[in-house]
């Protein structure tokens, strides 16, 4: 299992080639130039939206759904969430957004064939199909477990079905597939494939639950997290998560540079959004301690 090489990200004024609905989401195709050739599954892109007179300064991060080096394009699947994604959805082909890509650590890929289950919630499936292709190319098998709140929030069920017979789909409201959570079909899928790797992308509670199931089944859990980001490139320190290192010490790691794909077993899921007292340097955060070291 080896980490992908870390390419030097490119900053490009990227023209929008297509922007169209994809269920509850939007599919955005960007002319990304050389950046397209550097992408591995799990890499993300950071967009600055709205140009110079915009009141929004911070970058928005999106998983890269597909990258086509020949066409020099990058495709993203995004949901309207707040101001920036709403403004992005109001763009039209021909408009330009400032793109930085590829960013982050992609999913670790096997050197040889391995069997893997790919678990995704909502648009979290976007980066999974490129990953599936590469696993299949290396002679492994893949299964998909796709979940969402409702049918329109599922993305890529057909793409998954075209790739593998092992596809389980669930929705919270039962409007498509089984009614339930991705954690319901996951154990069976791991067993069916004898999977040693579970890759997941979705909300934090899902990643935690997936990791628990994977670990219980002796599989490695590779989780792509979504932590609020301001820059996407590692300079603002806003996107940290408590992650336990090889040395057993927990530190706040930037999810944009150390992640977004983390070994799920090392992330302190329950402590996200808190300051665990055993975190390295947490003692220094108490201004009233008597000894200043």
């Amino acid at each position, binding site marked *: 299992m080896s980490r992908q090489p870390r390419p030097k990200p490119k900053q490009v004024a990227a023209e929008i080639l297509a922007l169209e609905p994809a269920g509850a989401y939007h599919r955005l195709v960007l002319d990304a130039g050389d950046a397209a050739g550097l992408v591995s599954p799990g890499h993300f892109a950071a967009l600055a939206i709205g140009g110079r007179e915009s009141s929004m*300064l911070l970058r928005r991060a999106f998983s890269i759904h597909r990258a086509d080096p020949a066409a020099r394009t990058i495709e993203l699947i995004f949901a309207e969430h707040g101001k920036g994604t709403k403004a992005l959805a109001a763009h039209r082909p021909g408009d330009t957004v400032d793109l930085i890509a590829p960013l982050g650590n992609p999913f670790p890929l096997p050197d040889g064939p391995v069997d893997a289950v790919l678990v995704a919630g909502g648009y979290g499936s976007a980066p999974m199909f490129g990953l599936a292709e590469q696993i299949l190319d290396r002679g492994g098998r893949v299964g998909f477990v796709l979940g969402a709140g409702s049918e329109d929030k599922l993305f890529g069920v057909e793409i998954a079905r075209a790739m593998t017979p092992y596809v389980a789909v669930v929705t919270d409201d039962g409007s498509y597939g089984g009614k339930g959570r991705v954690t319901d079909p996951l154990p069976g899928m791991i067993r069916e494939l004898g999977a040693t790797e579970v890759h997941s992308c979705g909300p934090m509670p899902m990643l935690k639950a997936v990791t628990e199931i994977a670990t219980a089944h002796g599989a490695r859990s590779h989780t792509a997290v979504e932590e609020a980001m301001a820059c996407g490139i590692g*300079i603002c320190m*806003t996107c940290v998560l408590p992650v336990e290192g090889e040395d057993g010490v927990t530190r706040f790691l930037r999810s944009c540079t150390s992640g977004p794909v983390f070994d799920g077993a090392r992330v302190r899921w329950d402590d996200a959004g808190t300051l665990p007292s055993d975190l390295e*340097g947490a003692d220094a955060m108490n201004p009233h301690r008597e000894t*200043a070291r």
Partner: protein
Amino acid sequence: MSKNIDMSAPLGATVTLPNPISTASGCAGYGRELHRFVPLDALGTITTKTIMPYVRSGRATPRMAETPSGMLNSIGLQGSGIDHFVEHELPWLAERGARVLVSIAGERTEEFAEAAARLKGQPGVVGIEANISCPNVANRGLVFACDASSSYETIRAVRAAADPAQPVYAKLTPDVTSIVDIAAACTEAGADGLSMINTLLGLVIDTETLRPHLAGTTGGLSGPAIRPVAVRCVYQVHAAMRAGAVRRVPILGMGGITSGRDALEFVLAGASGVALGTVLFNDPSAPLRVLRELESALAERDFTSLQQAIGRAHTSN
């Protein structure tokens, strides 16, 4: 870098930089990530994230909120401490020819001095920025730079502990009734320069959770939103220098700079150097763009050197 504009900028009486562009502390880490977008040796200086004598985890998340033309942050000075910096980050910076302005802080005056002393004779270090816009544990947690005498003491201690070849800058907060008084105390104490401004204290409430959005409750407001406040601070302090009320030292101006035009505003107000902060999150390539734009802006206005433009807004023709 030509157009025949002399872009050299004084960092202190003894140190001159090839150009006035710096990064603002905490907005470029220790340079490694920014180096992928801008060769660090092309900057006048790179200012590091503030470093304490010891390891600090920083605050819990959420650590930021976007605000109109700005952002709020409460990172809480996460870092591995001065020893780690000197051993693992500084050599890498020095190798790349970066001129490093090391931002330091402590919770007590002695901690500032300790960090400063550790930088003595270190290759790559061109100066020290004492971030006194942080709470003073010995004075009921009141921010050092909110109090003239705390500011004076700390800057005096840093100046005494630091390598005499390294200019010492005091980084001031705008959240005071009179920034001129604090500037006077710092220069009196031996500061070789002033960095202005740090963030403004702000707060955003999450209207979904009904609670303050940041884990740290309040945070620092930065970005173009605060630029008029920053320019005002630089202008006021430079005016006080002209009037003899504050000892004359270079000013490193910052707060919402996004373009050469913005940088020129700070220079005209009295800054000798300009630092880019929040803009880097939007555009990590900004430093070279701003440098080029500033150069052109100076040329278009018939300046032949940066020096001529410094404080020009104070003269009537």
